């Protein structure tokens, strides 16, 4: 049986209008490590990709019965990926090992993720590797404030690439970085000049990549996140991110029941859920990664990244309160593994850090 990590990885490159998605993609595709990718773009003509497979897609979506906007199957993507999969199987196209989808500037990444993770055929062949969001350093702050699409693209990112930083003041860039960090505490934020000599890692590092998963998980536990979590927070943002830590090991069954119930009721408002969990009875950390209603199969690290053995859950949410999430998980965990003495309630065992 094929493991989840062996499925063809799919990356989403998104970002608001004019934020430099195509320029970044051109740079990435010059990397020899990315010589065997299938590229799906919305429009032809802007990018020279002679040696790459290229297919255009029009962004149409098919809404499912429950009508939730994030649970929409992208019909165009479904058709394009099924067709390319079939052609690859028949040997009609070079064997691509990765797919990169460049979205339009106003696209919502959630239906793409939903399509990959839930479509009857695609979910057995493809997996979502990561979402890269480009942010225009000059106009990014105004776009995030003025357009919900831009804020969501930032909130859902695994990595953010700041573009056009040479065109604006360093203080503005620093302020933008702080705002991006408040919206998305877990994503790696890079200036285009910081991408360095291994640009392919922007796409290849994920929690299922044997080489890159330790680097990826390290972002989730970085000291920077802890410092930010304890710092001042702007409550005016509709989207917020925070880290919840648990001192006691989590029961995997209780966590699964709780998370599925939470995402059923509030999945539309849980933009991302990432976690490095200390699961009771399991010596190594278990990694989870979710996008709205969908959660990937868990992965793991061979060893803990540091001496801290607490579970750390990163939430990027829209309008949900950290305290309630913290208390709710603690109550569910105690249903299976009640403490010997906990008169003040199980929430006393949880330590939350607010972003």
């Amino acid at each position, binding site marked *: 049986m094929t*493991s*989840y990590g062996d499925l063809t990885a799919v990356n989403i490159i998104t970002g608001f209008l004019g934020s430099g998605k195509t320029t970044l993609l051109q740079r990435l595709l010059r990397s020899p490590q990315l010589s065997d990718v299938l590229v799906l773009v919305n429009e032809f003509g802007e990018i020279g990709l002679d040696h790459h497979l290229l297919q255009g897609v029009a962004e149409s979506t098919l809404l499912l019965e429950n009508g939730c906007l994030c649970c929409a199957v992208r019909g165009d993507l479904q058709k394009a990926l099924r067709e390319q999969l079939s052609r690859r199987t028949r040997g009609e196209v070079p064997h691509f090992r990765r797919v990169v989808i460049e979205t339009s500037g106003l696209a919502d990444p959630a239906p793409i993720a939903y399509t990959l993770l839930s479509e009857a055929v695609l979910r057995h062949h493809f997996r979502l590797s990561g979402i890269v969001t480009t942010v225009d350093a000059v106009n990014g702050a105004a776009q995030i404030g003025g357009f919900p699409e831009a804020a969501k693209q930032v909130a859902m990112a695994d990595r953010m690439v700041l573009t056009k930083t040479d065109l604006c003041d360093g203080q503005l860039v620093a302020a933008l970085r702080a705002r991006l960090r408040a919206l998305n505490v877990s994503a790696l934020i890079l200036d285009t000049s910081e991408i360095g000599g291994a640009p392919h890692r922007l796409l290849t590092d994920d929690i299922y990549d044997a080489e890159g998963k330790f680097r990826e998980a390290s972002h989730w536990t970085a000291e920077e996140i802890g410092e930010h979590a304890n710092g001042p927070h702007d409550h005016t943002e509709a989207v917020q991110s925070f880290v919840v830590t648990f001192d006691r090991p989590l029961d*995997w*069954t*209780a*966590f*699964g*029941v*709780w*998370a*599925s*119930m*939470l*995402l*059923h*009721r*509030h999945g539309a408002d849980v933009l991302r859920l990432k976690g490095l969990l200390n*699961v009771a*009875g*399991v*010596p*190594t950390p*278990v*990694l*989870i990664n979710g996008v709205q*209603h969908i*959660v*990937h*199969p*868990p*992965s*793991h690290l061979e060893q803990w990244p540091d001496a801290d053995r607490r579970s750390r859950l990163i939430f990027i949410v829209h309008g*949900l*309160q950290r305290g*309630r*999430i913290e*208390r*709710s998980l603690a*109550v*569910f965990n*105690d*249903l*299976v*593994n*009640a403490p010997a003495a906990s008169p003040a*309630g*199980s929430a006393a065992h949880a330590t939350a850090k607010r972003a």
Partner: protein
Amino acid sequence: MCALCGVLGGKGHWSDSASATAAFAGRAEPQTRLRERQARTRLLNVVLKHYGVVVSDWSGNAYLLSSRTGRTAIVETISEIWSAAERLGGRICDPLDEGYLAKLADGAGSTQAR
């Protein structure tokens, strides 16, 4: 597929340890799929008791939900349980509801799922 009843293998779910065997390979106490489903079913019954819904494992591939009035539903994964429980119980299943959490916490000591 079950050779006796013709039931196809159920859909996998991320919360099944079997969906990521490598992640749980180092378990001190090995967990079989059946044992995990039994533990999950016990916990689900504690959680859903407050909505008037009872859950049982159905052939190891699905969950059978029953309401107090005898209405039933069969679902394949725990993600599908909550919609069915809301239909049968007539109430929204919300793990962030303070009143619900208080009831759940009050009963935690006496109705532990394990």
